């Protein structure tokens, strides 16, 4: 089976080539088959790999395949090789599986595009799948970085998919450049890793971490910090999250796939993958947890007041990503990955649902102009409901288990403050998500009658994936039933724990924890309670007492404005970084280059030469007397020099 690993990324790549080169002529039909088809096939292969691994005993669940040696210069070597272990296979399943669904969904969503655009879209999407698979399957940091940049590129291309509108293109550019800032850190991390371990292969680095690095030593600290900078960029954490909200400029399925389900979680994957290093750097783990928590709360607060449906989802994504970092920050890697998976299900669904809404409203994204859509689009409604409950953390929906495990692990790791933040975020999440839900589907329709006349449920190609994901959002969480509930239900094992456990061997979170049940139940109750309160509050504010929010907003005008304008962070960056840099560049060009170097030095030399030239040729007065005088002068000078010199 291992021999076929290469197929997984190869299939989407094939899709890229076919769609990219022939797509325009072959027409939508072929593209619509090839695009999703290749991903589906990849999914199939992945499942096969999964089963293969499953068949083995936990200790030896590793498949590798080396294609060729990619870079070999001096003592640096990096192979193009794949590593398939429980961790990567989990991600591969998510990428190909959810990816496949979204590909299918896209057929319906993008059917208005002309043949060229359609082909271009699926080319990009396949390319993204390929890059993402490269990212999760890489067996060394460099190849991981290749995928890392690859997904960045695709997100750039897809955000700017409708490039005729400058705004979209700039959003893409912003995404790419902000990501580059992160990659800068990632690169330094890789340099440092190579410098320390003499290799960038996981197989060489991770096992050696404990022996080479000192616990809490500066080396470990810097390596992990640099890598984390990369993660912060890719996974849109403070302070580099700014690109993600803008990224909503892309087609909605793209937001679902790239900016919710897969790419943005790459950071979590990377940290988890490099857990061996992070465990040697507790300080950085603390930073990770801190930033995660902060981002979670921060984004939630912003999400609370956004009116653009996709923006709300974007901030919620950021918030949820924060959650995941909170998890890995307390070394609860399994929990982090767990939430990553469940989040992939329900957040993708939320986006697709939102997409379906936007689709039927012909591009309308402002929730204040929606409402009561329940009547027209039942499938969307019910699936969205499932997803919203899941993200709100209502049992037994997927989100509940993962989120709850995170909170529990945080508490257990002895960070009550972080736990509190997590809890508050949970409440806020429930609040703003149901705000979204109610504003969209309940109440009266607030759009134009013209829009109203066109309201319709989306075509099956869109609804089927919705349903599929809906199911996953419900049951997805059951793969990680905590022991606390598990033994109530008769010792249902925590499948995920035992599945990923071996990967995180040595991780403190790894070994089964003999918790103090009462506390665990208490926490569980608390989180559920908070979620419920949130939902009720949302119902109260946006369903029963529609006027209330405005009044509150007026009451706390400054705070409202602050949230509404996302804490003015974009403006801040613009003023502190972008403008000064542009100004400096202009200075370098006009003053240093033109003025100093070319004008003063080069031009100056030229002028001096011309001036001297003038002098030495003016002496040539044309009058014999001058010549004779100079001549005689020279002669006398030489004489004097010889006789007295």
């Amino acid at each position, binding site marked *: 089976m291992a021999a076929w690993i290469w197929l997984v990324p190869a299939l989407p790549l094939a899709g890229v080539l076919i769609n990219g080169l022939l797509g325009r002529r072959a027409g939508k039909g072929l593209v619509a088959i090839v695009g999703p088809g290749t991903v589906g096939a990849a999914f199939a292969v992945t499942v096969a790999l999964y089963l293969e691994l499953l068949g083995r005993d936990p200790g030896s669940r590793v498949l590798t395949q080396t294609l060729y040696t990619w870079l070999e210069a001096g003592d640096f070597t990096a192979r193009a090789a794949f590593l398939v272990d429980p961790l990567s296979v989990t991600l591969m399943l998510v990428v190909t599986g959810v990816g496949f669904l979204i590909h299918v969904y896209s057929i319906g969503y993008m059917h208005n595009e002309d043949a060229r655009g359609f082909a271009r879209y699926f080319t990009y999407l396949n390319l993204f799948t390929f890059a993402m698979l490269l990212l999760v399957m890489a067996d060394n940091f460099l190849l991981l970085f290749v995928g890392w940049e690859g997904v960045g590129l695709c997100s750039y291309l897809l955000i700017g998919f409708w490039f005729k509108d400058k705004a979209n293109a700039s959003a893409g550019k912003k995404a790419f450049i902000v990501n580059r800032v992160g990659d800068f850190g990632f690169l330094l991390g890789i340099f440092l890793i190579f410098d320390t371990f003499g290799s960038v292969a996981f197989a060489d680095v991770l096992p050696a971490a404990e022996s080479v690095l000192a616990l809490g030593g500066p080396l470990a600290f810097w390596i992990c910090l640099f890598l984390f900078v990369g993660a912060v960029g890719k996974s849109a954490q403070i302070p580099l999250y700014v690109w993600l909200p803008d990224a909503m400029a892309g087609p909605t399925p793209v937001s679902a796939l790239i900016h919710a389900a897969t790419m943005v979680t790459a950071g979590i994957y990377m940290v988890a993958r490099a857990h061996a290093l992070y465990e040697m750097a507790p300080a950085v783990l603390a930073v990770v947890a801190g930033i995660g928590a902060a981002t979670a709360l921060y984004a939630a607060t912003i999400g609370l007041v956004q009116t653009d449906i996709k923006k709300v989802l974007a901030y919620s994504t950021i918030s949820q990503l924060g959650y995941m970092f909170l998890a890995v920050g307390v070394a609860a890697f399994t929990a982090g990955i767990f939430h990553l998976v469940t989040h992939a299900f329900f957040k993708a669904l939320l986006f697709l649902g939102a997409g379906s809404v936007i689709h039927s409203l012909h591009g309308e994204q402002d929730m204040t102009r929606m409402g009561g859509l329940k009547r027209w689009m039942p499938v969307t409604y019910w699936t969205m409901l499932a997803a919203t409950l899941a993200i709100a953390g209502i049992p037994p929906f997927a989100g509940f288990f993962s989120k709850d495990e995170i909170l529990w692990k945080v508490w257990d790791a002895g960070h009550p403050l972080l736990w509190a933040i997590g809890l508050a975020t949970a409440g806020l999440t429930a609040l703003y998500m149901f705000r979204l839900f109610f504003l969209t589907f309940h109440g009266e329709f607030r759009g134009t009658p013209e829009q109203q006349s066109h309201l319709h449920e989306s075509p099956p190609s869109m609804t089927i994936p919705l349903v599929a994901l809906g199911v996953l959002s419900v049951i997805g969480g059951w793969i990680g039933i905590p022991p606390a509930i598990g033994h109530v239900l008769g010792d249902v094992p925590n499948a995920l724990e035992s599945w990923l456990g071996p990967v995180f061997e040595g991780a403190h979170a790894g070994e089964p924890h003999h918790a103090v049940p009462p506390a665990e139940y208490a926490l569980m109750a608390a989180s559920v309670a908070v979620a419920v309160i949130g939902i009720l509050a949302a119902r109260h504010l946006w369903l029963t007492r529609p006027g209330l929010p405005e009044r509150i907003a007026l009451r706390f005008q400054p705070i409202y404005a602050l949230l509404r304008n996302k804490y003015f962070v974009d403006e801040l960056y613009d003023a502190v970084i972008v403008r000064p840099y542009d100004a400096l560049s202009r200075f370098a060009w006009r003053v240093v280059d033109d003025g100093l170097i070319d004008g003063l030095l080069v031009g100056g030399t030229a002028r001096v030469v011309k001036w001297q030239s003038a002098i030495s040729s003016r002496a040539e007065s044309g009058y014999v*007397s001058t010549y004779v005088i100079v001549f*005689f*002068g020279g002669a006398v000078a030489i*004489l004097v020099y010889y006789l007295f010199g």
Partner: protein
Amino acid sequence: MSGIAIAFWVLATIAVVSSLLVILGRNPVASVLFLVVSFFCLAGLFVTLHAHFLAAIQVLVYAGAIMVLFLFVLMLLNLGTPQWFDFAGTPTKVVALVLGVGFVGALVGAGVGDFTPSARGPAAGIPPDVLGSTEAIGTALYSSFFLPFLATALILLVAMVGAVVLARRER
């Protein structure tokens, strides 16, 4: 004070004065005549140095030929009268004076004045009166200085041709 000494001082004085008058005089014709005077003095000085033949040549060629040529041109171009443009501006004069004095000063100051030749040349030691004799010079010209002598002839030829070419009227 020997006769030679007297002769030297007199001739030297006249030579210097007349030379000065040549370059100071307004009237070109006068200058020519003063030049002739200074040439005569030089001839005289040659005599004091026992170079009789050269003295004769000096008088014949210079005073006789060259000066006539000068006068001839002066007359031809009718430049006999003084001309206003004739002198350079004062600054030039000053510079010229300084340089001239500098030149003499340099040479004299460096001890040219009390220079005594070290007779180390190959043909050294020929007694002065022999040295100045027509015979000696004639022999030298046709023996050891044959080539330069020939070349000098060519110079005269070239000068003649050249003068013809340059001064000839337009065709």
